[in-house]
């Protein structure tokens, strides 16, 4: 094996290889991260949404906006609020008549109409109605007749959806490019018969696979770091994070090279991806839904990459908390190297 030839091949892969490979590896994780963050990060919020049409200039709108327990949105007309309620953009829409605050402060009976979205949950409706009543009392200057003391029990903390989604996003970023780049590159060379031409030169199959693997490792490591930076999760222990990302990138590239050696064409690769992708991303679901026992995640190899990332970026973990996972990750990488060599020998497509 010649490092110089590997270097030349790597440069060729970067600059002369099909641009679509690189675009696929960079753009796809970014788009997926963006879509996943937007869709699940912001929309899984269980806060009830209240829409208000203020026909006067009620203080209730400002007071409602200040509440953290609900989401308040303002609309201009009754027809607009009916439309947004019907579409489910808000759970409930109320119309405050002109002079509403005056009526409330003077204790005069007044009526407001609440449009309720038919698919709104019962608890959301109750929460909004009680909140409106409470705001009206505050507006009227009524003093709360009780003192409430909130006491939190237990040590667990509520994990926001954005944090729960980080493992999935990082997995996509590292494994998407890391697997697809080397595998499609190998399959493409097989299809175009350029690999045979290459290995009759002093370049060995090992050189070619190492160059393609390095390309996958570099890009997936880069994407992993980009995603962590974008999600503000790169602050603590950056050296450890880079180490874990690098080990995961190696794993991804190895899987990609094995698939590249085994698959005859891109369509077969895509078919395997339909199932294999789910298995690779399974540990992310453990973090998405904490109700699922964590031991299930340990069955999947990518768990040993995700556990250290979560431990460092979200739980202020350090080396002792991740050491076991890192060693398992190294062991998995070594096993995969063996599997790759075995696959190349077994398939007998190239001389090794």
């Amino acid at each position, binding site marked *: 094996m010649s490092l110089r030839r590997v270097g030349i091949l790597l440069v060729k892969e970067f600059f002369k290889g*099909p641009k*679509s*490979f690189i*675009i*696929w590896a960079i753009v796809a994780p970014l788009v997926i991260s963006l*879509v996943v963050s937007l*869709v699940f990060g912001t*929309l899984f919020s269980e806060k009830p949404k209240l829409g208000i049409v203020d026909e006067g200039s009620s203080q209730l709108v400002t007071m409602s906006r200040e509440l*953290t*327990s609900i989401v308040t949105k303002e609309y201009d007309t009754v027809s607009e609020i*009916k439309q947004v309620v*019907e579409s*489910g*953009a808000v759970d409930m829409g*109320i119309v405050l008549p002109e002079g509403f605050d005056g009526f409330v402060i003077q*204790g005069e*009976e*007044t*009526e*407001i*109409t*609440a*449009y*309720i*979205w*038919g*698919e709104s*949950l*019962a*608890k959301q*409706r*109750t929460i909004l*109605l*009680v909140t*409106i*009543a*409470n705001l*009206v*009392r505050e507006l009227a200057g009524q003093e709360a*007749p*009780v*003192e*409430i*003391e*909130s*006491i*939190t029990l*237990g040590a*667990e903390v*509520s994990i926001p959806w954005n944090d729960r989604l980080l493992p999935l996003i990082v997995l996509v970023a590292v494994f998407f490019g890391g697997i697809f780049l080397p595998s*499609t590159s190998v399959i493409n060379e097989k*299809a175009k018969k350029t690999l045979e031409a290459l290995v009759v030169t002093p370049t060995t199959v090992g050189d070619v696979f190492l160059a393609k693997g390095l390309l996958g490792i570099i890009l997936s490591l880069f994407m992993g770091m980009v995603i962590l930076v974008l999600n503000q999760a790169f602050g603590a222990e950056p050296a450890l994070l880079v180490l874990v990302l690098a080990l995961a990138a190696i794993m991804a590239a190895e899987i990609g090279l094995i698939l590249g050696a085994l698959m005859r*064409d*891109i369509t*077969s690769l*895509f*078919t*395997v991806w*339909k*199932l294999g992708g789910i298995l690779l991303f399974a540990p992310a679901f453990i973090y998405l839904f904490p109700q699922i026992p964590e031991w299930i995640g340990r069955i999947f190899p990518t768990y040993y990459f995700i556990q250290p990332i979560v431990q460092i970026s979200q739980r202020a973990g350090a080396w002792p908390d991740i050491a076991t996972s890192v060693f398992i990750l190294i062991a998995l990488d070594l096993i995969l190297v063996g599997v790759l060599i075995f696959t190349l020998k077994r398939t007998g497509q190239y001389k090794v």
Partner: protein
Amino acid sequence: MNLRTIVALVRKDFSLFFRNRFFAIMTPLGIIAYLIIYFVMPSSVNESLEIGLYAPVMPPAFEQIQDEGLEIELVESEEALREAVTEGQYMAGIALPADIMEKFLSGQKPHINVYFAADTSEEVEDVIEVLITELAYLQVGEPLAIEVSEEVLGPDMLGMQIPLRDRLRPLFAIFLLMVETIGLASLISEEVERRTIQALLVTPMTMAGLFTAKGITGVSLAFGQAALFMAIVGGMSDQPLIILVALLLGAALVTGVGFLMASLARDVMSVMIWGFVALIILLIPSFGVMFPGTITGWVKAIPSYYLVDTVHQAANFGAGWGDVWLNLMVLLGFVLVIVWAGVMVLRRRFR
């Protein structure tokens, strides 16, 4: 156009598909994986806030709080309440003091302890406090100066909410349809790359026959899997014919998209890139079903909206032909335009 030639080509494509061990094994395994995801998701929607209440003396106003959306359970002691909240049995636990009524009657403010599990969100904590305050107002006889008249817009789903997994059905259907289409587009692209298409066209096979055969293969593969999935997850229990028609049109639509992708792509890899772009665009309307109200009217410009909406309405609300005919007509229109465009550009590329 020779029917026998078309049938022969379709049979050849199918035989190639199922002779390939990966396609034959992994395709059903893929469906199984989606089914597993579907069936492990919760099958019902929890509509209520579960609250434990310890009340040595029960104020009349607090007796009335068995409202829709609240599940109040009485607990025997404050210690039992704390334990239940810690174990996650309740979202919150309210402990009323023994002297609550005396305090209310004497105009003093009673002190109420509210226990929350550590993972209870801040907004739920706020809401429980607001609820208790409101009950206290009612107890001391301070009436609310407003009357709220309620009007429910759309079908009132109280007590029969659609679980998220059922909202995901259109997304799964689109996903299954599109993945097969990417496969079809890459098959065509491969044939173009290897010039087997040109070889085929020097036989009695005509261009129209070729497209018909490829179209039938694409539609059958995509439709078969999506229909099987929908049948297993119960999506066809209400309006099976509507779902089948919608999926068939959807399969034709994505086959047209497949033709377009194959014509735009230079190689199989760029098929995947174009496929990815098409997949994201076509999936957008299904996010609107998963999270209602998040997507505005522009989504109707995306053809898959009419497939997603029809599947959602028919499978989750039991909508009939009268409710969805317009969707199906618009979808058919999109199918005709996209398939025509796909055939035209692909035909130009073959020449």
